[in-house]
């Protein structure tokens, strides 16, 4: 596996369990590991039974965790803009604009962008401090969306830059006579902000599609819906040139399932296991059984043993 490992999958299949266990496995090998959760409904704190939040928290030797808080991140971003604005805009307008900024901070798209920005910041800033960065993502839809963001937003940024340039060029033409200074296009702060943002998007896209830096792992259960969703997700990711090599099949029933109900379940499961083996025959499958207690720090070691075959 590569330095950056994303764990994805349908809701409730055990992404957090799998990513925590894999993180544990990495620390046992002596790698300094950072485990990041991008799911707004964080559950790392429940597994490790301690407060984590949006700062790097040491869990144990070589194991660190971080839960990205979208609200906090977008608030930071907005406050920064407000501070910046006070130096530029007259105080009368500031009040009006501040109201608009506050409204925008709670709009639905903001959380997603805030999480994306923070994740990229963490990856870029801490890449050299850690041997391994593991990302526990929100359910599949979110993850796919997250990955398509740079592509989508990059396109918009291009359009914005083009429009702004055209407007400025015309403006410059219309006012040429009284201005013999350097080109207004070159010192337009709007254009430079847009270009900065575009460069960041480009960098994010490069990182996420770098096959030598990033691995994606999907977690699924031997049941109908998770299998179907995983098939679709694998295909979608292929489109973004992201290839999945490993799958984690979680919550496999023990062989000795007593009672009519469990025997039937097991039979059903066998069918789905066979389907998984067939459909994903070109992937490495890591099979983790269902355990009879809550996942906590002390049984992570036990679960982490199933990752033995992974590098």
């Amino acid at each position: 596996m590569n330095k950056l490992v994303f764990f994805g999958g349908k809701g409730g299949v055990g992404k957090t369990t799998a990513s925590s266990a894999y993180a544990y496995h990495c620390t046992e090998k002596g790698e300094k590991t950072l485990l990041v959760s991008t799911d707004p409904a964080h559950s790392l704190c429940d597994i490790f039974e301690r407060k984590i939040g949006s700062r790097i928290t040491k869990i144990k030797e070589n194991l660190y965790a971080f839960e990205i808080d979208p609200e906090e991140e977008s608030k930071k971003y907005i406050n920064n803009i407000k501070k910046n604005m006070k130096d530029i805009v007259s105080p009368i307008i500031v009040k009006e604009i501040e109201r608009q900024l506050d409204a925008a901070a709670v709009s639905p798209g903001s959380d997603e962008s805030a999480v994306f920005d923070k994740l990229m910041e963490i990856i870029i800033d801490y890449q050299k401090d850690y041997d391994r960065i593991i990302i526990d993502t929100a359910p599949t839809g979110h993850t796919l969306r997250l990955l398509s963001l740079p592509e989508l937003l990059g396109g918009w940024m291009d359009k914005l830059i083009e429009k702004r340039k055209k407007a400025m060029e015309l403006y410059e033409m219309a006012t040429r006579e009284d201005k013999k200074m350097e080109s207004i296009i070159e010192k337009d702060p709007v254009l430079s902000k847009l270009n900065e943002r575009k460069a960041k998007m480009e960098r994010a896209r490069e990182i996420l599609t770098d096959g030598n830096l990033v691995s994606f792992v999907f977690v699924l259960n031997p049941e109908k819906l998770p299998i179907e969703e995983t098939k679709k997700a694998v295909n979608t990711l292929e489109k973004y040139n992201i290839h999945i090599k490993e799958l984690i099949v979680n919550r496999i029933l023990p062989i000795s399932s007593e009672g009519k109900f469990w025997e039937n379940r097991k039979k059903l499961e066998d069918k789905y296991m066979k389907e998984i083996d067939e459909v994903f025959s070109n992937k490495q499958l890591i099979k983790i059984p269902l355990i009879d207690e809550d996942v906590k720090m002390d049984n992570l070691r036990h679960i982490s043993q199933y990752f033995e075959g992974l590098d």
Partner: protein
Amino acid sequence: MENRREIFDNLKEFLKSAFDFKENSMHHIKKEAYDEMDNFMLLCFGDLLGIPVPTAYYTLELLPYLAEDLEGWERRIMARKSVYGDRWGDFCC
């Protein structure tokens, strides 16, 4: 005679363009420029009018630089009777 007429016409055209009588060409360029500025604002802050813009979060950081224009833009665009009419260019020049 024909020839002289042609020379005179050409000279008239030349002078018209060179000295821009009635600032006609400037007027057109200015109008076009303001229209483009308005369109740019629409792409950035369409959210304020209820038009979803995927980059809305990122264009917020442009607000400090565009804030002065924002109020006028909103007024203009709200007052538009059609998408084509009543643009900034139509107001000022």
